């Protein structure tokens, strides 16, 4: 498939794929993403009956995963717009299925036979899947973002967490970004004026993938990273995936208890950080919903602005 850059940012339009976690547990991510999209001239269109992307079932029944992904892709195809996700696992799962369906004609035929018989849908392979952050990076662009910054965030030192499925497996993303040395999120952070903090094990997995199987293992994985972040005294961690948030923010208290430590580390979604830079009030970006208080962080910005 051709990965064309899309129309000019002013009239770029995507169907937004929310997945399971965002619309129930990460409204602040969705609210802030929609706010910054509107401000930057990115139109987001809705499909109300998308299901789970299929990712959780991949380990149990690969073909069921492909069918679930194909059903969502078929609904998106009806809209005729490229699909953009907020969750990195949704992005990986839909991108991989999309490639496979587009490239394997036999598979596409079989999937369409089953989909049309069972749920009355077909997917012809006509849409492109991407991540909301990738759209900001590639279609809006760092320069354009920097030009629209209204609030100076230069007092903030924040740590990017890329997570796994935003860059890996690099084969499904046509190696858009080197997964061993990604730069897009650091650069997007710098575009807001904030400092992007480097830290040990920056590319390490949050552990979310094993949470359902073994909570202690998952917590231990997130614990290591939170320790590394504390060592760098970052003001906040910046995420682009709701499942990473489950680990670092949702489970931060539990990790503190389990490992007898304390972080109180604010965790923001990138669109929240960007929204602050674009001049939105914290409340407009759903910051009240952040479980780890962001009051100090916001004070730091306003002190600087005064």
């Amino acid at each position, binding site marked *: 498939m051709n990965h064309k850059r899309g129309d000019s940012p002013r009239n770029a339009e995507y169907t937004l794929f929310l997945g399971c976690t965002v619309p129930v547990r990460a409204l602040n991510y969705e609210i802030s993403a929609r706010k910054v999209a509107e401000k930057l001239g990115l139109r987001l269109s809705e499909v109300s*009956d998308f299901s*789970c992307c299929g990712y959780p079932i991949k380990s149990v029944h690969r073909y069921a995963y492909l069918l679930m992904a194909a059903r969502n892709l078929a609904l998106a195809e009806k809209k005729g717009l490229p699909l953009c996700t907020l969750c990195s696992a949704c992005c990986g799962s839909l991108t991989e299925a999309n490639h496979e369906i587009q490239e394997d004609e036999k598979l596409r035929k079989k999937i369409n036979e089953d989909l049309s018989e069972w749920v009355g849908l077909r997917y012809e392979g006509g849409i492109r899947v991407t991540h909301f952050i990738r759209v900001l990076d590639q279609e809006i662009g760092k320069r354009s973002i920097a030009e629209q910054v209204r609030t100076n965030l230069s007092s903030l030192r924040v740590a990017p967490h890329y997570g796994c499925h935003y860059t*890996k497996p690099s084969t499904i993303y046509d190696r858009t970004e080197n997964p061993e040395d990604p730069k897009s999120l650091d650069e997007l952070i710098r575009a807001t004026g904030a400092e992007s903090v480097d830290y040990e094990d920056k590319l390490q997995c949050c552990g979310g993938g094993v949470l359902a199987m073994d909570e202690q293992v998952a917590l*231990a*994985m997130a614990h290591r990273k939170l320790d590394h972040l504390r060592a760098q005294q970052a003001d906040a961690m910046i995420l682009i995936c709701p499942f990473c948030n489950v680990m670092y923010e949702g489970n931060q208290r539990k990790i503190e208890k389990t490992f007898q430590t304390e972080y109180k580390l604010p965790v923001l979604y990138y669109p929240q950080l960007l929204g602050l830079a674009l001049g939105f009030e914290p409340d407009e970006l759903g910051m009240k919903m952040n479980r780890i208080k962001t009051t100090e962080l916001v004070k730091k910005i306003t002190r600087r602005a005064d």
Partner: protein
Amino acid sequence: MIDSNTFDPHFKFLIASEPGGENIKRCFSCGTCTGGCPVREVTDRYNPRRIIRMAILGMKKEVLSSDFIWLCSSCYTCFERCPQNVKIPELMNAIKNIAAREGYLPASMKSQLDLLASFGRLLEVTDFENEKRKEANLPLLQGRTEDVRKILENLGFHRES
């Protein structure tokens, strides 16, 4: 003591015929996967090199009935680094697909399947959620979709209530 008479020499071929498991026989046990594995970093129970070795040797029952095959976090670090392109996370999925068919589905996966069949999502969108969405000026979502249940039923998953 491991008794090699119990090994099933066909196991590696079974895995190689499963989507995602095609490259298992390429593994030369270099350990790059285990060396960079974030799960292995915090627990000895998950060791991809060891699992692949066991699978190639034919330790079918030990592998399929284990809980360790389910501990891969699917971070794809090893996928990127493997010099033999064994595609380990996909290989683990292939093994897990076989395990599921042979009746070794962990309880947590079973409950995820039930949720998907019931709501079409892992988390239900209730009226309460839609009310919260309305307050936040977000578009409302369809509470559940029957399509996922239809797909699962047609593939032979029977819901256990």
